[in-house]
């Protein structure tokens, strides 16, 4: 099953992971996950909060489309993607990607690929706010290079 959720509400990655783990069937031998948190510091200094802008309707559709594509390519049994929008306080989780598969290679690869897509292909815009003011964060050359690996 593929589940994607774009939410303004804080969420518990641990609860989502536990639910996924408890639903495992006999085929599921591997669960890999990634949690992204709002940092308290960046190269620009102290971070108080992030603001995630999204395009209602379009963002949900695109994240679902990317998740289905990743799940199919890596033969996943389950994939969960939860992504916060709105104001996210420092230390709070921003994103969870968790993949359940028969073997570890597919689970690891799927999580990495989904995260690389979220960084460059999903309609989100991220603004960091600290004592120095606010600035929009855009993908780096390294983000685009990692994303390009999946097009080969």
């Amino acid at each position, binding site marked *: 099953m593929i589940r994607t959720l774009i939410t303004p509400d804080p969420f518990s990655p641990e609860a989502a992971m536990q639910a996924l783990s408890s639903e495992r069937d006999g085929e599921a031998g591997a669960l890999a996950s990634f949690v992204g948190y709002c940092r308290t510091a960046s190269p620009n200094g102290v971070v108080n909060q992030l603001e995630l802008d999204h395009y209602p309707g379009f963002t949900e559709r695109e994240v679902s489309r990317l998740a289905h594509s990743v799940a199919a390519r890596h033969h996943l049994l389950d994939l969960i993607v939860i992504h916060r929008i709105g104001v996210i306080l420092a230390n709070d989780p921003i994103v969870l990607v968790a993949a359940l598969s028969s073997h570890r290679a597919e689970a690891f690869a799927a999580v990495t690929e989904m995260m690389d897509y979220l960084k460059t292909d999903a309609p989100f815009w991220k603004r960091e706010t600290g004592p120095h003011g606010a600035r929009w964060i*855009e993908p780096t050359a390294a983000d685009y290079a990692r994303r390009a690996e999946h097009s080969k």
Partner: protein
Amino acid sequence: MTRILFFGRTRDAAGCGEMDCEIPAAIESVADLRAWIASRDPELGAVIAARDIRVAADQCICANEGASIRGASEIAFMPPLSGG
């Protein structure tokens, strides 16, 4: 009436996330739209002129500057996407 949506740094430049406009019939392509907005608001026009600002018409990303936006009920200006 067309709803124009601004995301990321284009929202800051527009001073709002969305506005409703009557786009003249002569404005047919993405390039026409950028130029038309610049003629009404040069500061905003300078921001949305950047090549990395993509345009979506009715939630489909326009492939190039010549793509038609005619008849779209919703047009979005989208800076580089940045989730995760």
